[in-house]
């Protein structure tokens, strides 16, 4: 069981959360984005083996979104933050 530190609720069981994927993917500006930028945004992923910044939704808790830095090999969690803030801890 992953224990996910919600920035607002503290450590909670993974069953309270929904995974929302890679947090480093930024939506391009629709006014100026090229086709390649859309391809990159919608389909391509870094898929790192190691530390991964990812979005989770505390669906059965405070219902807020959060960013978590988790290791994809060990499943260790280095820290978490609100989605628009930086996470301290772990490598990047």
């Amino acid at each position, binding site marked *: *069981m*992953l224990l996910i530190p919600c920035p607002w609720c503290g450590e909670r*069981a*993974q*069953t309270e959360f929904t*995974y929302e*994927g*890679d947090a480093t993917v930024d939506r391009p500006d629709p006014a100026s984005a090229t*086709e390649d930028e859309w*391809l*990159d945004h*919608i*389909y*391509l*992923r*870094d*898929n790192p*083996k190691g530390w*991964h910044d*990812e979005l989770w939704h505390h669906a059965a808790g405070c219902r807020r979104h959060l960013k978590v830095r*988790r290791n*994809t*090999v*060990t*499943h260790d969690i280095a820290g978490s933050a609100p989605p628009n803030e930086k996470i301290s801890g772990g490598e990047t």
Partner: protein
Amino acid sequence: MVKYSIFSLARNALSYHQNWPKAWRSPEPKQEYDVIIIGGGGHGLATAYFLAKLHGITNVAVVEKGWLGGGNTGRNTTIVRSNYGQPGNTEFYEHSMKLWEGLSQDLNYNVMFSQRGVINLAHTDAQIDAFQRRGNAMRLAGIDAEFLSPAQIKAKAPLIDISPNTRFPIMGGLCQPRGGTARHDAVAWGLARGADSRGVDIIQNCEVTGIDVSAGRITGIQTSRGAIKAKKVGVAVAGHSGQVAEMAGLRLPIESHVLQAMVTEPMKPCLDTVVTSGAAHMYVSQSDKGELVFGGDLDFYNSYAQRGNMPRIEEVTQALVTMFPAFRRARMMRTWGGIMDMSMDGSPIICKTDIDGFYIDGGWCYGGFKATPGSGWVFAHTIANDAPHALNERFTLERFNNGTPIDESGAGPTPKAH
């Protein structure tokens, strides 16, 4: 290669089976090969086998970082089926099914392919419509499919609960009678033996650490056992496709996720078909040893860990005992995880790349095992001819650019489909 037969068995019985030759060699890597296949699982070995058998290319090496079939080939739940509805998938998986039907004879190695039938359970009116449509699409493509009533399902799997009061009431099911299971280790071993006997070098404990590209063309690979030159390199490392492609500077529409599977203690024969439920997401069959082999959803977070967490095990097991109440007394023996290449449309990638002589076979999502012979067959064709076969011409990387993904589940761009 010693041909396995009743005569070789009898001959070796005379010396108490002490003198069987090894099924394949363990050669040192040569300086250079015409083709190197990265990944010694079922897909890589099948590719090497068909390169040698059908295309006359025998100066081939298969390099594997661990041991043969120690990755996803030995971790899947052994189910074989070709019950797909989308153009591209339908004919490819049926071709694979036909290769399965002759595989033991072709390899002179018993892969224990058992066509015991695969049933997809329908629990809602919408699923009945979708399954009947898919069954019709299959039949139009010449593939066997039967829609079963709950009573017919009960006749095939007597321990199943078809009462209306269960958590997921069963309203029908789509059955592919030619589907079934095969012994996954035997598939790797049989293909390795067949490839080796045709001259392919199988090099285990050899991890690829780099891919050499010069002026847009592949020139070789770097490994833990030194550099090896190659005219062509094919990657068949599903689970780690992104990692290996990155060595050549490619970024793929793939996320790696962990999928768990479980077995119970062995018991007497009680389930002689494969039963799956998309709604509860659980699939179960009984192995020849008597264990119930079952699994379900991904853990649904990126992972390379080959192990998962308890909540998914609990959920899948709940679905199993809800549908088969008798199984609640069975004790769980083992659980494990495998790393899935989850492509963004749920369909595989078998294609050339922008680098000359560099080919990718990956993105198998949950379903690579059933594709093993078909994947090797078309990948060998693609490498030998530097062009795809008609059966894999849709499995390109470009399909994500040009708006032709093969979205079997109709879920849009997501690494959760299969």
